[in-house]
């Protein structure tokens, strides 16, 4: 490794950034392509985060659903009769909170929101919102909305909205339940029964202290027939997989497009820099540089270009995420470390491929040309 003590003149960096405008445009071009991937990735990560918010932030260790149903998103679950009692009797269960669930429309006179409508036990609060930011839990004839959804609908505490077609008064506002796709609305069990039915859709199960979620899930699978049992993390992973599967093709297309753009910009930059500096490289070769050293110089230029582009793209993505969260609260952009790592790996591949372009020219440089008069 090169240390400060034995460092050489940074020829690659100097040559690359000698013409600042070109260098800035190149880095900006590559960064824009990478930013596209990061943002799209971030938007889907944000949507995934929001879609899993309810289960992820709830107190349950295990979720029981209709056999074969593994998610709430795009699912309908109806538990068999007796499942609640059978679950309660399993050793290691601290409590069971049944919830009702359906997907429907919440609307006022002017707007409408696609929503998860969840009926829960308001006396214990289990299965309800993670945090009530204003007002109180809903009673009969009432509903608790997510703050962002309420804001978009233009309603507040005490106003009336239509939930699954029935007018309910807003008793409180929660947070964290609205994504770019939908929102989450809470009513009491009694109100849900009035709206739809009193059938439980999911059971949220808490393990007693000392019993691990996985162990409890195994016991429940053995004891309760005709249901699907997942630990909370398994349920969250299932929800995330659905979102990811929906977005995978789009992400793949955008990644390939961005990869192509980044590759073209980087390759063109390196080739241009190399061709305009051929005489310089001939001089360096005449002074005693090996071809290998020149190859390393161009490789370093590729590394500098993509490293700078990744840094700019990540910074821009973070900034845009912040701006979007202010301007469009439903659009959550999560720039994850995994996404940054993936993008950096793509960028590194771009750098390696782009560096291949100028290599034949470098290999053919005749140091004797340094002695010819400059044009």
């Amino acid at each position, binding site marked *: 490794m090169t240390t400060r003590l034995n460092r*050489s*003149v940074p020829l690659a960096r*100097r040559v690359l950034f000698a013409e600042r405008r070109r260098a800035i445009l190149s880095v900006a071009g590559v960064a824009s392509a990478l930013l596209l991937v990061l943002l799209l990735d971030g938007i889907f990560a944000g949507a995934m985060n929001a879609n899993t918010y309810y289960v992820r932030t709830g107190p349950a260790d295990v979720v029981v659903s209709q056999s074969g149903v593994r998610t709430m998103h795009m699912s309908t679950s109806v538990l068999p009769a007796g499942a609640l009692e059978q679950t309660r009797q399993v050793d290691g269960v601290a409590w069971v909170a049944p919830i009702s669930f359906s997907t429907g429309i919440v609307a006022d006179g002017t707007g409408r929101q696609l929503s998860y409508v969840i009926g829960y036990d308001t006396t214990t609060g289990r299965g309800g919102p993670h945090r009530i930011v204003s007002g109180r839990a809903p009673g009969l004839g009432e509903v608790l909305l997510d703050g962002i959804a309420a804001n978009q609908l233009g309603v507040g505490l005490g106003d009336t909205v239509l939930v699954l077609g029935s007018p309910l008064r807003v008793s409180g506002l929660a947070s964290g339940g609205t994504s770019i796709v939908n929102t989450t609305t809470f009513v009491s069990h009694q109100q849900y029964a009035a709206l739809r039915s009193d059938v439980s859709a999911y059971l949220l199960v808490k393990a007693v202290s000392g019993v691990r979620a996985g162990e409890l899930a195994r016991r429940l699978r053995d004891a309760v027939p005709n249901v699907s049992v997942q630990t909370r993390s398994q349920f969250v992973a299932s929800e995330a997989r659905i979102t990811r599967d929906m977005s995978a093709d789009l992400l793949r297309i955008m990644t390939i497009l961005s990869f192509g753009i980044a590759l073209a910009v980087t390759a063109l930059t390196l080739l241009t820099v190399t061709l305009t500096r051929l*005489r310089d490289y001939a001089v360096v070769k005449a*002074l005693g540089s*090996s071809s290998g050293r020149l190859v390393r110089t161009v490789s370093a230029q590729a590394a500098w270009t993509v490293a700078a582009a990744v840094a700019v793209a990540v910074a821009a993505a973070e900034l845009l995420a912040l701006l979007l969260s202010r301007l469009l609260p439903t659009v959550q952009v999560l720039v994850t470390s995994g996404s940054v790592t993936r993008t950096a790996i793509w960028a590194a591949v771009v750098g390696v491929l782009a560096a291949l372009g100028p290599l034949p020219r470098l290999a053919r440089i005749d140091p004797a040309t340094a*002695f010819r*008069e*400059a044009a």
Partner: protein
Amino acid sequence: MTTFVQAPPTALQARALTKTYGVGATLVVAVGGVDLDVVPGEVVLIMGPSGSGKTTLLLMLGALLRPTSGSLVIDGIDTTTASGRTLTRLRATHFGFVFQDYNLLGALTARENVELACNLAGTTGPRARSRAAELLTRFGLAGRAGSRPDQLSGGEKQRVSLARALANDPAVVLADEPTANLDSARGHEIARLLRRLADEDQRSIVIVSHDQRLREVADRILWLEDGVFREIAGMALDPVCGMQVERTGPSLEVDGTTFWFCATGCRTEFAERHGSTVGSQPR
């Protein structure tokens, strides 16, 4: 073929050095069987008309071009049979190059240009920086170390080029038309600096040039024509500027003695001093 031989030790020894291009009817002999020994501390000026093979010879002497035949021994290595890697190392460690167009890297500062040559020779870090600073100071450029080539005058650029040529402490400095793009004062300055490198450091200096000003600093002047060295006429001394000049330029006969001059300006000045009339003697 004319042979110029100096007594050993030699910094550079060429024997029957030949470079040809093409074959058969298209065969062109760029350099044809040149012998040359250059000893430490010697300044050799190679002159000749355009197309005489001067640059080809310089490229071969600098291990930048392989001879077609003959031998060239530098530091005990015969460059005609050495590997490409050996030639590269030889250039990095044994030679200093001075170019007509200076050939400084525009993206680097004066100090970095010199330091890069140190790096190529294997010296890096503070030692390289210190060496670069020392050389720039030697050539009066301490205050210009941070300047880029486009911020330097022609004379300054060529002095940076000289500093770069010495970065690897070379035994031989090869200079291609080092004064071609400089005005008279700067040209003389560079010529004197080249002389100093030979006198003070005992380096061998090989200069390829058309510039008559360089004659004053040369120990030997070789005339290359059609790829071979030819004998040149005995030199005369310009009585005004003191330069060694060929007996083919401007001249003036005073009291039965013929004087030779580097230029008509010197001849006019000489004539005015001695009250002679300058006739229509051809230059």
